[in-house]
């Protein structure tokens, strides 16, 4: 029988995950209130914060798994599942709305064939909303895999996505 908590099952990724979690803890051991820096490091290394890493972090930091899960789920930036190779974040805030941001968001939805917080059916890209990239004088703005793009249009977005292989 397989259950999600069946820890005896061999998972080739697990060792990698444990090592990333342990390294993050070691790196920030001397800092007070270090949970956010640790979670950032884990997500940077693994693309997300998998539940098996949470268990390691909990025992290393003497917190409950629920406490760590509570922190992960509170912050929009932290993910429990790995996104597609292309992470497209479209700004949905007021300044972008004033410059056609809603139309751009609709275009992104159509282009990827999915809604916000979802991924394209072919697994190429994940679409996320973001509330302000601080590029409000050059709206609308998006971020693709952490790189900012301002004064976007539907055509420009297509070019950027195509350049990323989408």
């Amino acid at each position, binding site marked *: 029988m397989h259950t999600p908590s069946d820890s005896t099952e061999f998972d080739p990724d697990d060792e990698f995950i444990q090592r990333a979690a342990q390294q993050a803890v070691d790196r920030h051991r001397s800092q007070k209130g270090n*949970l956010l*820096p640790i979670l*950032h490091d884990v997500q940077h290394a693994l693309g997300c914060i998998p539940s098996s890493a949470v268990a390691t972090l909990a025992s290393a930091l003497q917190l409950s798994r629920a406490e760590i899960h509570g922190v992960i789920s509170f912050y929009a*930036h932290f993910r429990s599942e790995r996104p597609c190779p292309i992470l497209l974040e479209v700004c949905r805030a007021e*300044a*972008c709305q*004033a410059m056609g941001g809603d139309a751009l968001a609709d275009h992104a939805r159509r282009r990827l064939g999915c809604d916000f917080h979802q991924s394209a059916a072919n697994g190429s890209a994940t679409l996320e909303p973001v509330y302000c990239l601080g590029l409000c*004088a*050059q709206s609308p703005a998006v971020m693709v895999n952490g790189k900012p793009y301002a004064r976007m249009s539907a055509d420009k977005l297509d070019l950027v996505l195509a350049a990323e292989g989408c």
Partner: protein
Amino acid sequence: MNTRIFVPRDTAAIAVGADDVASAITAQAQALGLDVQIVRNGSRGLLWLETLVEIDTPAGRIAYGPVQADDVPGLFEAGWLDGSPHPLRHGPTDEIPYLKNQERLTFARVGIIDPLSLADYQAHGGYAGLRNALAMAPEAIVGEVVDSGLRGRGGAAFPTGIKWKTVLATPALQKYVVCNADEGDSGTFSDRLLMEGDPYTLIEGMTIAGIAVGANYGYVYVRSEYPYAVDVLARAIEQARRTGWLGSDIQGSGRAFDMEVRTAAGAYICGEETSLLESLEGKRGLVRAKPPLPAIQGLFGQPTVINNVISLASVPIILDKGAAYYRDYGMGRSRGTLPFQLAGNLKRGGLVEKAFGLTLRQLLFDFGGGSASGRPLRAVQVGGPLGAYLPESQWDVPLDYEAYMGISAMLGHGGLVAFDDTVDMAGMAQYAMEFCAVESCGKCTPCRVGAVRGVEVIQKIRRDDQREHQVHLLRDLCDTMFSGSLCALGGMTPYPVLSALNHFPQDFGLPATQPASDEATA
């Protein structure tokens, strides 16, 4: 001859291709056998001109913009290294009216210096304020900040010096300085421009705060949407530490102060000071009830100065030139300058640092050049997602904390987002409630539940489902959120909602009569 070429590395420039421009310049100069040195400066804040490239000529810095990588060969051909004419040339940067008509105190160095060069920083007056502070008693430093009239630039406008005084007077073995760089408001980017363009100013301001109140450690809490700002600050802190501007014995003074950058994680609510402190402690960003004030029991339960980036970055010039110099700018109880951020549907968006007292109309038209779309401007949201929407009849009210409070609006962090006449204000009111629902920390009921109900009620108004009755409910709900929320998120979401309803009733399907009394808001 070696010509210096300034190509901004600010996110605003990178987002429109500045890195490609820099590469194109290097490649073209090499091909032509010309000796150029590229300096990656901050942004001048003339954001419609980004990428704004400046050539250092004997006649001063000459501006060209907006430059795309494709323009570079033609610019060399036109002789831009000598400052020659070209359709993209704007003449000496300092003479561009948008820049010339500003009063840059806090942003004096931004865009001018190499952000990470300590030599450049000091050559332009950097660390003069801290040098003065190191020779002063803590009470005298705090007194100077009190006398300057500086108020919290994050939005709440609480007098900075008074906050410091409380921390100084609270005995503790450990105190902290926390910088709130969780600049989440739409329409604002001044914190980012400063951190990326002149990070040592913030470090200097925090160091002064530390020695003034007896805190030896500081945190800058920067939003995760600003990865470049995090990187620039981390490198600047490292260099300041290496050169003895941070550490256990600052420049041989015997005073100690050190600091680190912390990256936020995408929660708007963490811009609220107590929620930010929870986040720094490694917890969910739930708002704390006040009292106790953070100045008495803040980070890890210790007395904590918590100020916005612009407040802290304004401290060095106050300690350098004196409280009176800063206080002489401004009007009424709003002293000094505010870096206004012109955003949304404007022809010339960017950063305008001016003394308090000018009007929105001046910013929108004299600086902003009117709408980008060419259509009439209709509404301007001032102060972020929790700020009111102002109709044209209010654009001549002086930009001053008290004057804005008088019209049930707020200056906040100085951001303004302009909308043309295609905007649906009922839609914007609904968005304000949706935003509050998404970003609520969930601790108090008026905000957590009120925002969700607010969205539903506005939807009903928009589809004419018992419209009059729902409008009454919406006002009642706003009153509950305003009076009963724990922090400004729930407490101020009524500002954009009610200002939209009062000033633009026709968008809600209501008769365009006299706007309802402003007292309904407050």
